């Protein structure tokens, strides 16, 4: 029997058919000039036959002075596939908002042609440019060329991961703060935390400009900074009427879907009870020419989202209901430092900050990071009556209380 992958790739070839662009075609394009990509194609074909992966746990590899940014990867069949015995990944910090010039893209491509497999992910789940597959020897030379061209590595392991941002004010009328400026500033401010893992586990920032949350920050970021506003939605009544004339059923598809039923349409005038508006964005999404977020803009800061490992998945929950997001962001950064201090002190190995918050209780967590509790932080107050009061009066206490006052 022909050995899978050594004599053609019949299974992977199937994935070159069909209308969606094929990753197999991409590996083959790279394989024409690169022996690592050629070997990868063979190994992947073998995985398709055997229905199992052939990669081992990462070892500790990296560039000098950094603890993150490189994912060590080794094949479990090094003798059979010597060209990908090492197949490490570099995470390269993407330009904020994933904007590129053609020259910058070509620079990355040229570096990766000289030093790696020629395969990439545009982009990884956290947002980095993923340079997929090289040997240990090539890490330092790749890094030297990247930094010579003003690129640097992103995060991995128990560090601050590469912050990411939605397209923000660069191309979106709904951006309630400058997501690109904040993500870039956080990235530059916390270079040490990004490159040298010193936390209990990973910590992600994601900056979303409005409650549509195009970077999924509420599901994927330990700190989710989501733009919002606190005054009135801006209405252009002429454009509301125009939207109706263009075929939108405003009563059915806008008013009836408002979560707090705070919007009314009488066929002539659209009225919004802004005090009851929860800034869900539905009416604005539906009529982008007629409605815009208010002018007093800022963000809600939420904390703690993560995927299931270990204690179950979490969404971020409200930490600061509304704050202005303006440079130099001192208030925000001070709070981040307090959170990191408490987490570094009390977090267990591989415990995300959301899990720590649950384990110690939100009330205690807030005290530790010096944030006042507010009702916006909860879906509802507690239902269980087992309250941990920390102090109680003893006989004779009352007089002392009065004296203190």
């Amino acid at each position, binding site marked *: 029997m022909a050995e899978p992958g050594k004599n053609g790739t019949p299974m992977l070839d199937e994935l070159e058919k069909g209308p969606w662009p094929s990753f197999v075609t991409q590996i083959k394009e790279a394989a024409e000039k690169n022996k690592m990509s050629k070997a990868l194609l063979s190994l992947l074909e073998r995985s398709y036959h055997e229905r199992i992966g052939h990669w081992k746990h990462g070892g500790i590899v990296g560039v000098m002075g950094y603890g993150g940014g490189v994912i060590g*990867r080794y094949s479990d069949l090094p003798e059979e596939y010597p060209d990908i015995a090492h197949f490490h990944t570099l995470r390269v910090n993407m330009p904020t908002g994933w904007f590129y*010039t053609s020259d910058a893209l070509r620079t990355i491509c040229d570096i990766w042609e000289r030093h790696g497999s020629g395969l990439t992910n545009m982009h990884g789940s956290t947002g980095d440019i993923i340079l997929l597959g090289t040997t240990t020897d090539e890490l330092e030379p790749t890094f030297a060329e990247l930094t010579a061209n003003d690129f640097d590595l992103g995060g991995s392991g128990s560090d601050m991961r590469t912050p990411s941002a939605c397209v923000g004010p660069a191309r979106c009328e709904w951006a309630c703060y400058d997501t690109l400026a904040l993500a870039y500033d956080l990235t530059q401010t916390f270079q040490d935390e990004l490159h040298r893992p010193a936390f209990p586990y990973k910590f992600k920032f994601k900056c979303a400009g409005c409650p549509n949350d*195009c970077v999924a920050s509420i599901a994927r970021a330990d700190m989710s900074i989501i733009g919002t506003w606190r005054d009135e939605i801006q209405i252009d009544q002429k454009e509301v009427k125009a939207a109706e004339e263009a075929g939108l059923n405003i009563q059915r598809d806008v008013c009836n879907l408002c979560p707090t039923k705070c919007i009314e349409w009488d066929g002539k005038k659209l009225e919004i009870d802004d005090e009851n508006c929860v800034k869900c964005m539905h009416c604005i999404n539906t009529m982008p020419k007629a409605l815009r977020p208010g002018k007093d803009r800022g963000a809600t800061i939420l904390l703690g989202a993560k995927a299931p490992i270990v204690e179950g998945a979490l969404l971020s929950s409200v930490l600061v209901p509304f704050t202005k997001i303006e440079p130099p962001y001192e208030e925000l950064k001070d709070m981040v430092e307090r959170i990191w201090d408490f987490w570094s002190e009390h977090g267990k190995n591989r415990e995300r900050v959301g899990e720590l918050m649950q384990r110690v209780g939100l009330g205690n967590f807030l005290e530790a990071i010096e944030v006042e509790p507010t009702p916006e932080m909860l879906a509802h107050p507690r239902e269980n009556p087992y309250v941990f009061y920390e102090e109680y009066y003893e006989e004779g206490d009352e007089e002392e209380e009065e004296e203190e006052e």
Partner: protein
Amino acid sequence: MATERRTDIGPPNYQNFLPSVIKKNYGKWKYHEILRPGVMVHVAESGDKLFTVRAGSPRLMSIHRIRKFADLADKYCDGHLRFTSRNNVEFLLTDDSKIDALIADLKELGHPVGGIGNAISNIVHTQGWVHCHSAATDASGIVKAVMDDLHEYFTGKEMPGKLRIALACCLNMCGAVHCSDIAILGIHRRPPRILGGLNKVCEIPNVIASCPTAAIRPATVEGQATVEIDEENCMFCANCFSVCPALPMADALNDGVSIWVGGKVSNARSEPTFSKLAIPFLPNNPPRWPEVVEAVRNIVEVWHKNARNFERMGEFINRIGWPRFFKLTGIEFQKEHIDDFKYAGLSYKRSVQLRH
């Protein structure tokens, strides 16, 4: 002569990569319109217009393909382009007369244009067998097979609302699929094997502490310190494997795929919410995973046929109720659908508001 080694410089400043129309109108966009599938225009308060053409990509791309994107950006967009959070590539134009030619070139290269508005956008996904040590399934292969099948929903077939699909090849969820309209999630179903010499490569106390159900205990086998696993308490999270390579989980006979539905991250209308289990297990059947492709299409079609305007998958299911979701999709309800981890009770039905 040694030059000083540059470190901690961070990424290049994004401002250097913005097209001039964006620099001029930064933060001053007024509204946008979707002109046709995959094409939108943003209009600034100044009256300037920025046209965006969005094309699908396989995410895993060779440098040769990226150079072709760079050439297209030079030809049509003064050298400017960007990528989206769902791995699409966006070309940014100021001259709308160039749009048709750009789309033709993209089609020639094999990249469909679409994914804006009420459409299925690209599937965010993980590495799978291409590069991951803990994968329970491949990622790129399933994504390719599913998008081949659903691509008409990317390129313009009308839909009630947005539909976001994501894939993660194990519970680590590098793809954070847990808040998607449809999530495809690789799962293991066999407890880890315990390799000899475990104490040489792993810290046993760390291994024991890594287990969320306390199923791992210290043991001594043939005079060597190792661990034993209470298999009945293993729920296949693979956290022990993450801290200890001597506890491999991958198993060709038992690994496969589960399907989850009804999650979202947007705040529009209803609050962000997790996806819920629809199908506990489908087999790994490469190269095209026909069972997974069929299951996803079935769920998409049931939603497409029955959802009201703007209803996301989860909002649709909440309106009709889960029993009816199972009936409409023909998916068998099983014991595995019932949660048995922390807070499981919160998912029990605690009222008599039932449809009979």
